[in-house]
């Protein structure tokens, strides 16, 4: 069963979303590459291919980490639809390294009669590097 929908009146600017911690393992990266149709991008799992591509080591695909952020949003905003998800991949994430995800509500608006919220999003690694920064817009669908 889905959790109880989050009402617009219950959302305040400054509300925190998360935090959530996810650990993208090498196995998860391989399965994601298969599912996302990027299995031929070997630098995601082959150290030599990674070095040839200017990376110190194999990395986690940015869209996989963006997917973790989208999951956090959907779990937090039950009854809402993600209308926009903007993500910038700032630092490559390493296999097996925990990623700490969180967000903040930055704005509440009424767009043509539809309750809408805007959020800032962050995914950070254990060393305090921001792996992803982003924003999201969600609209109420009831």
């Amino acid at each position: 069963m889905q959790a109880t929908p989050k009402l617009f009146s219950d959302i305040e600017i400054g509300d925190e979303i998360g935090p959530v911690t996810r650990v993208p393992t090498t196995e998860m990266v391989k399965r994601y590459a298969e599912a996302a149709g990027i299995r031929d991008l070997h630098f995601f799992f082959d150290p030599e291919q990674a070095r040839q591509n200017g990376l110190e080591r194999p990395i986690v695909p940015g869209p996989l980490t963006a997917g973790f952020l989208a999951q956090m949003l959907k779990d937090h905003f039950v009854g809402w639809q993600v209308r926009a998800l903007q993500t910038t991949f700032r630092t490559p994430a390493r296999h097996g390294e925990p990623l700490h995800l969180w967000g903040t509500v930055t704005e509440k608006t009424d767009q043509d009669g539809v309750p809408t919220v805007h959020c800032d999003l962050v995914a950070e690694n254990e060393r305090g590097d921001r792996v992803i920064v982003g924003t999201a817009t969600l609209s109420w669908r009831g």
Partner: protein
Amino acid sequence: MIKLDPTQIGKEIAIGTFPVSAEDIRAFAEVIGDLNPLYLDADAARAAGYPNVIAPPTFCLRLRSGHMQPEVPLEPGLASLHAGQDIEFADEIYAGQTYTVTAKVAEVYEKTGRSGPLGIIVREVEIKDREGKRVAVLRERQIVRSPEKKI
């Protein structure tokens, strides 16, 4: 400087037409570890007002087949990396629907970043349902750089 060929800008290509099944969505949701009932259980999705299970937001990246298309020719020895994406959704992606995906190079430009000269390629991918209604638009940024300085 890294020189990118601008002649591909604006040329739209067909990526393909893709039927989406509940099994496709379940498989993707399980891989990313997102077991939201809306993605897995048609009854839960209908109870929430949807006609069928819906896909996680980043499922739309699977529909563009993973590849950075259309290709922009790069000089030998350069490396590239996905630098980010902006996705706008007009609707959810549903099981049982068929989606048509097109893509074009929207921009190419050069800049200097912390690691030296960079080339930036921006692609725009449009996803429409079988009725021709726009469901999502992705703008993906690809960075092109020298592989000598490791990140």
